[in-house]
């Protein structure tokens, strides 16, 4: 780090630790000069912590107008002095056991002229047995530093006096700054009922997070980084720091483990026992009984009845996804996990995952997993870690465990293992990631892809395992129509990836190919072809929707099934010439709907009488515009709709252009024809009481409007058949020159013959 003030006072030529020297610093809106130890590395470190950890935290979580601050391990006052000057309403108690540093601290306080600081040359430790804390607490409350010091004699392992941690609460501090390696847990526990708003400083090792992650008193906002690993942590590694921001969610700080249970009585006790075998009060197990017909719930009540951390929920059967969602809807915790009722865990796994979640803030943290298999003696034993070979990348210590970072791109391509993870509830809600309830198998695949993609990097605990029980009858081994759920889920993820603007879809494509290969290989032979066609269709949609570089790692050739390229080619041919578009990801096919794939083939139906579309006279077609000319007349006579009187007449036309009516032929549902008067909309040739007339087309089903056409040589006959009584017959030219209906015999003589023009 480069700092002007620091360069001005350091002496790089000195071999021995240089003597204390003035150090100018800027913090919390204050500028001041303190006397600090001369070692340049130490001076740099102090400034780095101040500017990288403490000041940003206080900037984001400003202290209230007044209160008591407790600076444990105050050093020469690098935090306490600028804080006291910046917050004149506060009283700052500084504890520093190192005599040389304490001397510097006291000098700096004196030089500052500030009256709101108290300095004590004390360490914080355990109270000696039998000591009465009451006088000490009274002295602390009275602000009598001299009396406090007198009441704190040196301990066995300490030259400086020791202030029992238990007495600190008497100060009712709203802020504590920790630089007390090894004492952090004891101090935080002692302050569990103090109205702490702010907890900062640093930790030498992870401490139980429950002293910070609790509803109150105080806001309990914290930033306590663990020592940075040496050498440099790998890129992208999470900063390990016990942290807590302002809680605006109102959720209970803690972890709810949702156990979806459906007829798992044989295993669920073992499962829940492994989840509850810890001393974490903020961990709860919510068993959701998804309409089981066995006695799993009763067994749980009998075995764990008194343990308030076990909560039983009952619902009608709706599938694993609905049970998991139900548990989530019932949960009020900040963190959530989903465990299967027939599995079990290393007892430390979930407590440590919650600690890791709270020390990384990560959206998703995970542990290892291993198969729980039937052994030769008929018991269950843990198989090898399937990820043993994948454990690449540097590990960092995290208490007794190790932690490494798995990139989402790697985790996404593996099999779904959503049950070995702890999720932040606000993350799941914000990203709207749920288990899709209509999907009754592999519903965890979409959950896995979406959570991992959005979590980006997954802090992973080493050495603790989820025991994943392998049954011969397990869902995923059936090879039935449920495989098509996978296609639907990849369609849904593709749609989201496009809508959410995923930068790189290569892991998604790799995961898709892995799933297609895995599913196809185990699928019932009669379903394999439909599955491949569905997969090929989705592949072509992806090609149309995504630029080619997303396919750089995984091409079509990675699909093992030999027919795959044939099917993709067919879809490409069908879509040839269509521009690329993300819109294709909105399409769908039956092969992505298990319910449709399971539908029995439609039964044959009684064949309805076919439409009488046959035997249509030449020249007659639907929509044709015609003129009807009486074939037998010597003079041209044309059928003319005289609209004003709604009359129909036979009009002579002496000269072109023809001025009479043009008729539009329209085919009716029953095969009959309507003759629409083209001059006037919705009027057509009909038969009423007054003979042939025009009628509005209000009821096209009416028989008196429908004409049958019959060829008679080169001419046509127009007839009404099967109509109402009195209106059957053929359209004729009557002797009086008017159109009318006449019997068949008369029509055949010529009066009823018409030509189309």
């Amino acid at each position, binding site marked *: 780090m480069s700092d002007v003030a620091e360069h001005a006072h350091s002496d790089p030529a000195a071999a021995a630790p240089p003597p204390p020297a003035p150090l100018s610093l800027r913090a919390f809106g204050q500028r001041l000069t303190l006397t600090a130890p001369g070692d340049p590395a130490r001076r740099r470190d102090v400034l780095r912590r101040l500017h990288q950890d403490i000041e940003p935290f206080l900037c984001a979580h400003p202290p209230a107008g007044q209160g008591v601050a407790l600076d444990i391990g105050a050093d020469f006052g690098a935090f306490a002095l600028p804080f006291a000057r910046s917050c004149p309403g506060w009283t700052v108690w500084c504890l520093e056991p190192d005599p040389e540093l304490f001397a510097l601290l006291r000098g700096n306080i004196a030089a500052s002229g500030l009256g709101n600081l108290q300095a004590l040359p004390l360490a914080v430790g355990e109270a000696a047995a039998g000591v009465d804390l009451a006088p000490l607490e009274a002295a602390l409350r009275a602000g009598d530093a001299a009396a406090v010091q007198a009441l704190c004699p040196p301990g066995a392992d300490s030259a400086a006096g020791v202030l029992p941690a238990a007495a600190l609460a008497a100060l009712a501090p709203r802020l504590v700054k920790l630089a007390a390696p090894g004492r952090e847990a004891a101090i935080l526990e002692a302050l569990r009922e103090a109205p702490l708003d702010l907890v900062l400083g640093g930790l030498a090792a992870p401490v139980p997070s429950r002293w910070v992650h609790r509803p109150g008193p105080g806001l309990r906002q914290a930033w306590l980084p663990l020592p940075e690993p040496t050498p440099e942590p790998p890129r992208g590694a999470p900063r390990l720091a016990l942290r807590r921001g302002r809680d605006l969610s109102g959720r209970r700080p803690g972890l709810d483990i949702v156990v979806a249970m459906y007829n798992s009585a044989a295993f669920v006790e073992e499962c829940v026992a492994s989840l509850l075998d810890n001393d974490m009060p903020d961990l709860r197990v919510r068993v959701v009984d998804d309409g089981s017909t066995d006695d799993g719930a009763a067994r749980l009540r009998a075995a764990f009845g008194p343990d308030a951390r076990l909560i039983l929920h009952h619902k009608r059967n709706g599938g694993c996804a609905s049970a998991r969602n139900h548990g989530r809807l019932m949960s009020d915790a900040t963190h959530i996990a989903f465990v299967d009722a027939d599995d079990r865990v290393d007892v430390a796994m979930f407590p440590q995952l919650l600690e890791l979640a709270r020390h990384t803030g990560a959206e998703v943290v995970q542990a290892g997993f291993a198969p729980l298999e039937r052994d030769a003696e008929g018991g269950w034993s843990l198989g090898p870690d399937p990820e043993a070979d994948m454990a690449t990348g540097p590990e960092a210590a995290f208490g007794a465990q190790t932690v490494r970072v798995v990139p989402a791109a790697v985790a996404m391509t593996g099999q779904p293992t959503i049950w070995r993870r702890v999720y932040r509830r606000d993350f799941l809600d914000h990203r*709207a990631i749920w288990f899709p*309830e209509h999907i009754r198998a592999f519903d965890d695949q979409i959950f896995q892809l979406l959570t991992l993609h959005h979590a980006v990097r997954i802090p992973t605990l080493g050495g603790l395992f989820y025991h994943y029980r392998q049954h011969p009858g397990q869902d995923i081994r059936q090879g039935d129509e449920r495989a098509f759920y996978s296609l639907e889920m990849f369609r849904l993820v593709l749609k989201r990836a496009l809508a959410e603007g995923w930068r790189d879809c290569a892991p998604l494509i790799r995961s898709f190919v892995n799933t297609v290969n895995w599913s196809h290989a185990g699928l019932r032979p009669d379903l394999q072809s439909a599955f491949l066609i569905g997969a090929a269709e989705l592949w072509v949609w992806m090609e149309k929707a995504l630029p080619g570089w997303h396919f750089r790692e995984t091409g079509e050739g990675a699909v093992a099934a030999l027919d795959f390229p044939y099917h993709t080619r067919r879809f490409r041919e069908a879509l040839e010439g269509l521009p690329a578009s993300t819109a294709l990801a*909105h399409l769908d096919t039956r092969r992505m709907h298990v319910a449709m794939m399971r539908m029995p083939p439609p039964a044959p139906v009684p064949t309805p009488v076919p439409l009488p579309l046959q035997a249509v006279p030449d020249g007659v077609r639907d929509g044709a515009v015609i003129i009807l000319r009486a074939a037998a007349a010597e003079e041209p006579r044309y059928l003319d709709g005289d609209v004003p009187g709604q009359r129909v007449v036979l009009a002579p036309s002496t000269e072109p252009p023809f001025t009479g009516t043009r008729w539009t032929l329209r085919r009716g549902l029953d095969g009959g024809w309507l003759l629409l008067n083209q001059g006037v909309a919705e009027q057509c040739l009909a038969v009423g009481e007054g003979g042939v007339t025009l009628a509005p087309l209000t009821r096209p089903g009416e028989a008196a409007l429908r004409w049958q056409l019959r060829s008679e040589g080169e001419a046509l006959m127009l007839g009404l058949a099967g109509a109402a009584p009195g209106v059957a017959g053929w359209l004729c030219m009557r002797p009086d020159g008017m159109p009318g209906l006449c019997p068949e015999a008369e029509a055949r003589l010529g009066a009823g013959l018409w030509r189309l023009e």
Partner: protein
Amino acid sequence: MKLSCITTTCNEGPTLFAGLESVLGQSFGDFEYLIVDDGSTDGSAERLEARLAELKDPRLRLIRQANDGLSGARNTALAQVQGEHVVFLDADDIRPHWAFAAIAEAIAATTVTGAAPDLILCRGVLVEARDEAMPFYDAAAFRLIEGFCPEGWLDQGAPEAAFVWPLAQLIEPQSANKVVRTAFLRATGIGFPNTHFYEDIYFHTQVLAAARRVGFVHDPCFAYFRRYLRPQITGTSGARRFDILAVMRLTLEGFALCPQFHDPLHRAAVLASCLKLVRWCEESVDHALRRDFRIAAAAVLRMADPLWGDFPAMLPVEMPELGRARDYFRDLKEAG
């Protein structure tokens, strides 16, 4: 139990109880009413819980689930119904007090002569945003059907079925106008297409094609409201409009497996009823999405069975939709 009525809710706001109150007012009482709350985030589910607790009516039941889409919610309910026939009602639409009685009467009238109808289609009423109530969009089709089928029901295979089935296909696909026999649904496996809106056309086409006997109720049995208070789910101009293309694909694929696919008139009616919705969506979608909409529409038609492009040479005058569909089909298929 005669009837099961299904309502799904998702962030219904002020119109939450409109449908519920109208169901409670039915003159016919032998029914169950299932409400599936599909992951409301506006407190609808809690309000329903409170109202049902207050009513203490054993016929009413609320099922809560995480948001899975309208189709998924309806399928959840379909899996649980116990009535002999199922009806649907949107939360903000209502049924007149005679609706269930008229439906039960139609079932009984049909059953006298044999099996209960697999499907009954009912007339309805449309209430415009300007508070004008009028016969529903498909009144003309119902009038034609009434002419062909005065008894109020028809079996597939009857001579009139050749016209009545295609006409019924052209009736508005929405679910409120349907009464479906539960055992028929279970046997055929027909449900709603999960994850999509504009889901009704798939269900409508499938149940109609599979139904052996269809009945018709000419009393209006529901009122469909267009409101400003709560926008229609399908009234968006956003990418949700693409759902109609997905549903058209499923509808065309499903119908192509049915024997009626080889009846040119029925086939044309299915295509026309799909394309009517597609055209509505194309004309409503954000202009920024229109190019993509046409590309995806073209893709659906190109991937479909080529027989869809084969229209009857002569189209009946009563179905002007068919001619319009033929022209739009050709226009869309060449898009891109």
